[in-house]
């Protein structure tokens, strides 16, 4: 079979075409899950090797502020899911409104996280304070960058608010949400 024949049978993504949104976004999502999974695994192993250092570092974190951020992010996930439902129903204006809601809540997440960082830095904790804080700042900072990137992606897909674009953008946003759901208890609460 020639490449042309193959392309005429579909877009060439195979079973990835069964996922909502653009298959390329799912390649990115699976890559990100693998990277964060390894990163979290490294954090867990480091904690097992230095339990006292990690317990001392964790005790200085503000779990209530991070818990508030969990509520902010899952709510933004809900507004993003509503945007997808509206886009599928061809209600583009409505979809755009829900997407703006998700972006605003994403911006609130960033603001709360920066407030949390400011408190930690003011207490004398930084990237080189201890292995706990090195991994904490890298993991949460990497996640925060994804929140920022997610806001940009949502802004881009909100322009046309076409169903396939909105599905693609919100799939990334839900991945960011899913990552925080796992990061929060492991870094802040597990003893």
């Amino acid at each position, binding site marked *: 079979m020639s490449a042309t024949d193959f392309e005429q049978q579909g877009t060439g993504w195979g*079973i990835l075409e*069964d*996922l*909502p949104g653009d298959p390329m976004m*799912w390649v990115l999502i*699976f890559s990100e*899950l*693998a990277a964060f*999974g390894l990163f*979290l*695994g490294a954090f*867990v*192993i480091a*904690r*097992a090797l230095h*339990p006292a250092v990690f317990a001392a570092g964790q005790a200085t974190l503000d*779990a*209530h502020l991070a*818990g508030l951020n*969990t*509520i902010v992010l*899952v*709510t933004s*996930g*809900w507004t*993003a*899911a*509503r945007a*997808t*439902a509206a886009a599928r129903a061809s209600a583009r204006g409505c979809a755009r409104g829900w997407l703006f809601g998700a972006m605003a809540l994403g911006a609130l997440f960033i603001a709360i996280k920066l407030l949390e960082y400011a408190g930690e830095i003011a207490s004398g904790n930084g990237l080189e304070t201890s292995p706990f804080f090195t991994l904490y700042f890298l993991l949460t900072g990497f996640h925060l960058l994804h929140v920022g990137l997610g806001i940009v992606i949502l802004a881009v897909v909100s322009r046309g608010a076409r169903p396939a674009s909105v*599905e693609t953008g*919100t*799939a990334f946003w*839900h*991945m960011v*949400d*899913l990552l925080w*759901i*796992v990061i*929060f*208890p*492991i870094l802040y*609460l*597990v*003893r």
Partner: protein
Amino acid sequence: MIPDRLDITWLVLIGLALATVLVPSIVTRPLLGNALLLAFAALKGRRIVLDFLDLRAAPALWRGLVSAWLVIVLLFAWSASAVVALI
């Protein structure tokens, strides 16, 4: 307005998020507390995967792959904390 599946998932996620923050002050035994925290995270993650990421209707392969990632990461975190608590 009658809440649909997305609304119910959102309410479940909010409830589990609040419960998660309360666990350390209510459950003092680390092994049990950690198990509860991570079980809540698994439940939250599962709802996000099925209803927000919308993999409920996707092939079982993809649903299983993302769910397996969730379970492996959380189980690894619990196992490591359990080993440290027991030795």
